[in-house]
């Protein structure tokens, strides 16, 4: 996964971002239960009419919240996630066979995304052994103990929601909206961050940057959350 890096001037537009996302793209998204899903990018993808996506992320959001909108409007042919309970549309599409769903245990999904991002070719775990999760997976025996082999996940495009970005693509996140975003940011062949605020060089504390800019290809301004939360 080698990509062209621009060191500076990574700031661009939603239009530029959307030019990277096509029918049948493998799209990975940061967020957990809608929190940390990038709202502007998701709305843009929806309005562009992109379809037959393979989506990879923690969950299916809610029907009208976050990534859930793309799921409930039938824009995904496949979803790799840890749960879909909060989006009944996902369950229905899975039941009718309109959308293929692959489940990973939540922390293993996070590690698979990280592995994709940091160039690790597989991880061994005992999580899921003896359960439905092991179906179709290779097993490896180490010191007479058996483990499941879980493979890395990568994407054509990763989309994340940051609190602040600088022009180099360095990112910091907002409280628990960090969740899977730093992992997803590393695993995209092309990574797009939408940020609530975009700042100049040197304005982010190097000690507090969570995602180094090298992982990010394009930064666009966020228009903020455009949905009503379940708790509201």
């Amino acid at each position, binding site marked *: 996964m080698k990509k062209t890096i621009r060191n500076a001037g990574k700031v661009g537009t939603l239009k530029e971002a959307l030019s990277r996302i096509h029918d049948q793209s493998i799209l990975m998204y940061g967020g*957990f*239960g*809608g*929190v*940390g899903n990038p709202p502007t990018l998701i709305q843009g993808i929806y309005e562009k009419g992109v379809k037959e996506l393979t989506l990879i992320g*923690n*969950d299916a959001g*809610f029907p009208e919240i976050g990534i859930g909108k793309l799921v409930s409007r039938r824009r995904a042919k496949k979803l790799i*996630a*840890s*749960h*879909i*309970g*909060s989006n009944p549309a996902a*369950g229905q599409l*899975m*039941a009718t066979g309109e959308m293929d*769903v692959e*489940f*990973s*245990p*939540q*922390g*293993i999904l*996070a*590690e698979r*995304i*990280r592995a994709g991002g940091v160039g690790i070719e597989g991880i061994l*775990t*005992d*999580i*899921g052994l*003896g*359960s*439905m*999760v092991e179906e179709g997976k290779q097993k490896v025996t180490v010191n007479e103990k058996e483990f499941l082999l879980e493979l890395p996940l990568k994407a054509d495009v990763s989309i994340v929601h940051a*609190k602040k970005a600088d022009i180099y693509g360095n990112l910091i*996140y*907002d*409280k*628990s*909206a*960090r*969740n*899977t*975003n*730093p*992992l997803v940011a590393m695993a995209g062949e092309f990574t797009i961050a939408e940020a609530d605020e975009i700042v100049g060089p040197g304005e982010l504390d190097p000690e507090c940057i*969570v995602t180094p800019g090298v992982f990010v290809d394009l930064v666009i301004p966020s228009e903020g*959350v455009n949905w009503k*939360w*379940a*708790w509201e």
Partner: protein
Amino acid sequence: MGVGVDVRNQIARRAANEIKDGMIVNLGIGIPSLVSNHIPEEIHVMFHAENGILGMGESPEKGFEDEMLCNAGGFPVTLVPGASYFDSATAFGIIRSGYLDITILGGLEVDEQGDLANWIVPGKRVPGIGGAMELANKAKKVIVVMNHINKNGDPKILKKCSLPLTAKKCVNLIITDMAVIEVTEEGLLLKEVMSPYTVKEVLENTEAELQVSDDLAIFI
């Protein structure tokens, strides 16, 4: 059969008794999330969330929610002093390395071996695994809180789970609207009966074999 707010709180209150000062605790969605309301002030607990928080505090007051500070169920929370944020990979690193003293989970079925099924009813309900598989396998103590019987009136505590398992031999304690049951090497031990139920009612509504504790108590 759903259970009312009072009964849900009775279960949560009983579960809260298991939490001791200094523990690291993860609460699942539903009844488990009510447990934190029943922890006495003097008990300091670090609540852990799979999305990447250690040190969640109580729910914010209405109107003071921060949409970017939520628990794993997506509901707004607050922080206590000493809290930290991290990514979900680290959150599960904490779980898999066994740092959770207690996890409190919901359940669809539990059996005599302590096996737990709580993530899928094939062909019917597919919520997905979430973090349950890691929590159930790796926490030091796994407490399942649930209704004693399902909505058809059938027992959920079985000789052998029929649904696909979340984890084998993982459950330490079962707390329901009817009973508190410990999973021991010798099988299930009925330790407490929840008021207003009787031992007879518990036994009638449990498929698994239950031994009755010598010092059976009633929890009000």
